[in-house]
């Protein structure tokens, strides 16, 4: 399928989000769509798939202009969209999720459950996912849920598959599998639009790259004839130089220490420490237990045995409230379920963990609230129309920045960040690293859980590797590299 979208315009309540967007995808190609957070990538794709309707512009498929007014229209045009925020219904089974909205029925309108299960199983196995399709979707990892979404697109027989940051939650192994599948489908003539903030990936899998900035088409390049630096410059508008800024300081006292921390079924015998002015990275595969350890330290899902020392004193952290009192901050990984409240506006989300600071004689002070939001908007360069807009309408990366701002405000002395830059653009990533470095210089003890190896290697001082619920190795930065980390993360 050949797709050409030209001069697309779109405004939301007078805010011009797309000013002059364009993309040209040929058949049998993987086409990257790149741009900073809030550049309008997802919006453009939502227009293509009928979630939004455009104000102006044309969409041409195989030399015929088409009108796409609904999700059904785009499905008819054989376009499938895998959304940035995973769209699964937790209470339903895998097969029900896959066939949601396109169930197969017999002539009496009754569901053909066996047939759907067989089809679902076939597509899942194509992706190397050997699960029982009748299992509930919440019983499988986020990574696997993403693969289920892809299997769902395969079911549609789509000619063009749009993936909005598909690998954000996948393990190395799952990513390789995904890429294998993409290449295989490309051979069969299918096309992909691939949105991601991970440069390495883009250059590995894509053939063409379209860059947009501020809702405007900047240019299209063939991968073979461009470079990291050129693309980054097109995206942000200036030279970025080093991606991972680093400062070297001498770590001080141990602020946090765990001994044989165990939570049955989640993690076992986890012992480590972090010092003031130090960044400890946590690497490992999805499901290795990293996030669970962090929840234990934060008291949101306490360990059953083992000890936690804060500033040398043993503490019983039985709730996040206790953790917060001890100066621990936690930026969670699952943004949609743990990080933000979608119905709240930006500033309401921002003040949530520190409501007391924003009250005057018991009442929430609106002015303080808005001023503080403005402050963080500038500090973290958050792209938003106003502090009172609904956070659901912020782009994915900007939502993540709000989550970070929310905890920065509590002034933690121990800060845990779980996948802090997931979905964040390359310029903003650097801004976040610089903020983290600033905290490090101020003597905060920092833990970063991250599945992006370049990031862990780029900014951490020591790197802990977890495998199958156990902490198997702690590297000093100098001795760590991609290979030996992966080795410890995967090998038995």
């Amino acid at each position: 399928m050949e797709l050409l979208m030209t001069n697309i315009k779109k405004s939301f309540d007078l805010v011009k989000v797309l000013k002059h967007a364009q993309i040209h995808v040929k058949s049998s190609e993987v086409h990257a769509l790149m741009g900073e957070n809030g550049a309008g990538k997802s919006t453009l794709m939502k227009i293509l798939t009928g979630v939004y309707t455009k104000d102006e512009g044309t969409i041409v498929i195989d030399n015929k202009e088409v009108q796409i007014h609904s999700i059904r229209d785009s499905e008819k045009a054989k376009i499938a969209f895998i959304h940035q925020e995973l769209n699964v219904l937790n209470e339903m089974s895998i097969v029900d999720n896959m066939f949601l909205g396109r169930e197969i029925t017999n002539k009496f309108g009754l569901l053909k459950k066996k047939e759907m299960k067989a089809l679902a199983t076939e597509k899942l196995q194509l992706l190397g996912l050997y699960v029982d399709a009748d299992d509930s979707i919440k019983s499988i990892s986020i990574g696997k849920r993403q693969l289920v979404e892809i299997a769902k697109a395969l079911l549609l027989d789509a000619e063009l598959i749009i993936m909005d940051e598909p690998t954000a939650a996948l393990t190395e192994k799952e990513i390789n599998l995904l890429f294998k599948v993409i290449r295989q489908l490309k051979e069969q003539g299918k096309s992909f639009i691939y949105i991601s903030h991970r440069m390495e990936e883009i250059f590995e899998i894509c053939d063409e790259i379209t860059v947009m900035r501020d809702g405007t088409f900047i240019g299209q390049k063939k991968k073979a004839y461009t470079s990291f630096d050129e693309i980054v410059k097109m995206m942000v508008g200036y030279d970025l130089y080093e991606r991972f800024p680093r400062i070297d300081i001498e770590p001080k006292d141990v602020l946090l220490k765990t001994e044989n921390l165990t939570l049955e079924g989640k993690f076992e015998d986890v012992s480590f420490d972090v010092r003031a002015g130090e960044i400890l990275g946590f690497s490992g595969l999805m499901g290795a237990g990293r996030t669970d350890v962090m929840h234990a330290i934060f008291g949101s899902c306490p360990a059953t045995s083992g000890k936690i020392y804060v500033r040398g004193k043993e503490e019983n952290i039985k709730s996040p409230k206790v953790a917060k009192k001890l100066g621990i901050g936690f930026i969670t990984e699952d943004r949609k379920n743990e990080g933000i409240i979608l119905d709240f506006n930006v500033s309401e989300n921002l003040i949530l963990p520190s409501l007391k600071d924003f009250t005057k004689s018991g009442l929430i002070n609106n002015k303080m609230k808005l001023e503080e939001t403005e402050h963080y908007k500038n500090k973290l360069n958050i792209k938003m129309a106003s502090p009172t807009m609904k956070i659901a309408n912020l782009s994915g990366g900007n939502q993540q920045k709000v989550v970070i701002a929310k905890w920065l405000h509590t002034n933690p002395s121990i800060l845990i960040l779980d996948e802090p830059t997931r979905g964040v653009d390359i310029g903003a990533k650097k801004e976040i690293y610089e903020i983290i470095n600033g905290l490090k210089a101020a003597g905060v003890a920092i833990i970063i859980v991250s599945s992006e190896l370049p990031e862990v290697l780029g900014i951490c001082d020591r790197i802990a590797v977890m495998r199958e619920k156990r902490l198997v190795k702690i590297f000093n930065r100098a001795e760590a590299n991609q290979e030996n980390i992966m080795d410890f993360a995967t090998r038995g």
Partner: protein
Amino acid sequence: MIGTMNKVKGVYEKYGTVIVLLLLVVVISLMNPKFLTTYNILNIFRQVSINGLIALGMTFVILTGGIDLSVGAILGLSGMVLGLLILAGTPDVLAIIIVILFGATLGLLNGFLISKVKLQAFIVTLATMTMFQGITLIISDGIPAMGVTSNAKVLDFVSQGKTLGLPFPMIVFFIAFFLLYILIEKTVFGRSVYAVGGNEEVARLSSIATVKTKALVYVISGAMAALAGIILTSRLSSAQPTAGAGYELDAIAAVVIGGTSLAGGRGRIFGTLIGVLIIGVLNNGLNIIGVSSFYQQVIKGLVILVAVILDRKSSR
């Protein structure tokens, strides 16, 4: 250890309410053997059929994350319309059909306001409940319509008749249960109901007709309430202007006891069947063993709480 824990949890999730029901039956029949006679069991089924029909419709509404407070009022109004139609000489089969459609239309009004105008279900149905009650009083002048079944053979059968030795209301209830079971478990519409309740945005992005789905559940609920109204009217052989008061709460209680989450998206219609029976067994059994009606209320309230607590535990 964890394995067996999970198994216990799994068993409870599947059969928890059934176990509660069986326990109740055993305890009550030990206290008074008269409880477990064919006569009394059939009696219970006849008694629960009205609340049961409403609760089945309510299950659909609650699965989408909504609530329908107007069912009792719809029951009352439809019963009154039926009474007046019959007394005006309408053939009873025709009258029954008209009343069911009438109930569905009242439900459609709720559904329209909730899904299309996007008002909150609680407020909308609270308002229509009050309205429908008022209309019932207006058209009846506040006086019961008496002698409804005297010249209406079909209605008379509805109230007195037996098929295969079973009371007719019970048969109606089980047929309705069977049809609605198929609808919710085996059709695209059923999937849509769960999807809308689970996460409306996700449902919308999966190209599910969320507005239509949300409207339809109230139509079903309205029609079921009207059906219940027909049965009640024929059993009393008269239409009482305030007949429906309080039915909505019993129905909601049955649905919740049956394990359906008020937040929507999670629950089973089979659970509602059991929930209805638990309430029925309590009402009947407590009477038989001679608990005063004041205490009965307290006990019913406790059972609802226990059911919800158990359900919360098992869904963790």
